């Protein structure tokens, strides 16, 4: 086995070609599954591996699969390739450079829930990537790996790509399903959950690209092997997207449980111009701003440890590094402007809350704010919490509250009268 489990193109040069992928054990797991395993056995192996959803929520993947009822048909599988969180660029590299492993993962998930149609929902900006995947899907059809009665089995599967058109909210799974149905990308009320009433009101499984890409190695080498990597509660490897004030930004595939310090100073090469680190965000723009003290830097990046030690979820592991030159008031004005732009407008707390946070943060940074605006900004954020229809509204308040609490002088220097 090479150095990589997900970013295998860094080990195997021609893995983006079907022949190259097959030579590197490609589709061994899928063929094994459809010929020798029942769908329930595939699901059980994934459950046992402890794989957790890589889109951000960290929900156990095999458990999610188990929610689809077996008395309503057809089932659908949707790959969430909407990758839009500021600071996240992992799914793009996987689909660009190791496309067949992702597709094989999607095929395994589809087999496990017995779906005969799967969609890949790509953000509209990934237009080139959609063309690229369409070609790879054709390659698979020509090789008899997709289509009717695959490789002499009773299992049939078609995969289609569907392009979004520029809306962050479509990464939220119910908004994504609305979007495939040709509607505005606005989240649905839950319940019903997509597992029961999803796409076209049928049971639907939505999994992130990186989650799916984990499946072929898990099925090929087994759940026990997968559990030798990562931590007990967060098994396996994760692609960490490192960006911001870092010398070597990029994707790093590492076992879950790697510390912030290791990621930043060993893999990332340290801070630009060797400046002092000020704070980190682990889940892109949806993060708390976490003060980068020794306690933080020694925290293992895993789902449970980030929550226990920092009270801040690991999320999509889109780690944005902030050094001593970054003004947190400016940073908050950037994040709230993003969320204001991306709010879908369906629920009032988010639509109005992000509007006002953007307004207040904007005037603070421009120097036209009043001293009481700092508390007002935090107050709007607190009033939004727990009242929004989906997580987007909630996420928009994270940076605001944590930055005002932890870096108040950065705000006050703009509003001193």
């Amino acid at each position, binding site marked *: 086995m090479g150095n990589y489990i997900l970013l295998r193109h860094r080990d195997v040069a021609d893995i983006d070609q079907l022949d190259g992928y097959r030579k590197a054990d490609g589709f061994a797991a899928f063929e094994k599954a459809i010929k020798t395993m029942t769908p329930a056995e595939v699901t059980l192996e994934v459950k046992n591996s402890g794989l957790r959803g890589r889109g951000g929520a960290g929900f156990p993947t095999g458990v999610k699969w188990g929610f689809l009822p077996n008395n309503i048909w057809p089932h659908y599988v949707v790959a969430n390739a909407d*990758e*839009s*969180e*500021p*600071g*996240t*660029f992992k*799914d*793009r590299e996987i689909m660009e450079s190791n496309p067949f492993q992702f597709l094989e993962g999607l095929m395994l998930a589809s087999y496990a829930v017995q779906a005969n149609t799967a969609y890949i929902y790509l*953000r*509209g*900006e*990934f*237009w*080139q990537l959609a063309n690229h995947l369409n070609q790879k899907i054709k390659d698979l059809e020509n090789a008899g790996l997709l289509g009717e009665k695959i490789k002499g089995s009773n299992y049939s599967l078609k995969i*289609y790509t*569907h*392009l*979004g*058109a*520029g*809306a*962050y909210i479509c990464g939220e799974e119910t908004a994504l399903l609305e*979007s*495939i*149905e*040709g*509607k*505005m*990308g606005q989240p649905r009320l839950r319940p019903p959950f997509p597992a029961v009433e999803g796409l*076209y009101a049928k049971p639907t499984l939505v999994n992130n690209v990186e989650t799916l890409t984990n499946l072929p190695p898990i099925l090929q080498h087994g759940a026990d092997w997968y559990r030798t990597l990562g931590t007990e509660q967060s098994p396996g490897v994760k692609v960490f*997207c*490192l*960006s*911001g*004030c870092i010398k070597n*930004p*990029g*994707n790093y595939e590492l076992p879950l449980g790697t510390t912030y310090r290791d990621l930043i100073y060993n893999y990332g090469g340290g801070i630009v111009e060797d400046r002092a680190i000020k704070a980190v965000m682990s889940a892109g*723009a949806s993060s708390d701003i976490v003060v980068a003290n020794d306690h933080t830097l020694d925290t293992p990046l895993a789902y449970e440890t980030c929550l226990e030690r920092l009270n801040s979820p690991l999320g999509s592991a*889109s780690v*944005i590094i*902030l050094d001593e030159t*970054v003004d947190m008031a400016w*940073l908050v004005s*950037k*994040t709230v402007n*993003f969320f204001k*732009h*991306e709010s*879908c407008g369906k629920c009032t707390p988010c639509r109005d809350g992000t509007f006002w946070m953007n307004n207040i943060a904007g005037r603070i940074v421009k120097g036209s704010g009043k001293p009481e605006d700092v508390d007002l900004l935090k107050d709007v954020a607190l009033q939004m919490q727990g009242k929004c229809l989906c997580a987007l509204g909630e996420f928009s308040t994270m940076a605001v509250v944590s930055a005002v609490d932890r870096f108040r002088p950065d705000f006050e220097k703009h509003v001193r009268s």
Partner: protein
Amino acid sequence: MNELYQKHETEINEILSRYPENFKRSAIMPLLFLAQREKGFVPQEALAQIADITGVSETDVASVLGFYSLFQETPGGRYRIQVCTDLPCALRGSETYLKNLCEALGVKTGEITEDGLFSVEAVKCLAACHRAPMFQLQGDGEIKYYENQSVELTMQIIEGIRASVASEKEGKHG
């Protein structure tokens, strides 16, 4: 069926075939991209045509058109230079890059260059945070990424496009 359908019959049938028979509405977004290909924005008459093909009201199509930022309702430059200025890109200098690029092109964000070819916009995250400054170029029905940019590099790309547009025109006259 209508003009849009007649013009792109094979392609539209292929699009419709991706979705269940009774959920033609799913084809609205692919059809809006198709309608946008020619002029760089969705012409008014396309709303009724797409509604006709997918069996929904014109209002339904308009709501989708208005919701998503990659669908353009008004003419812009033939090529839209869309620079990401979100947090990770801004930490790598994309705001300064955008300002200097606008100066080099002699436009403000949202304006079109004198030759009508380019407009510049600031947009939200494009999933290329590690290779900022970057922009995507939307035009001729395509979207392409250009990463690790400097104003000099971008101006070279722009001059390249200008040259190919000029030779395209010459080709038509000749």
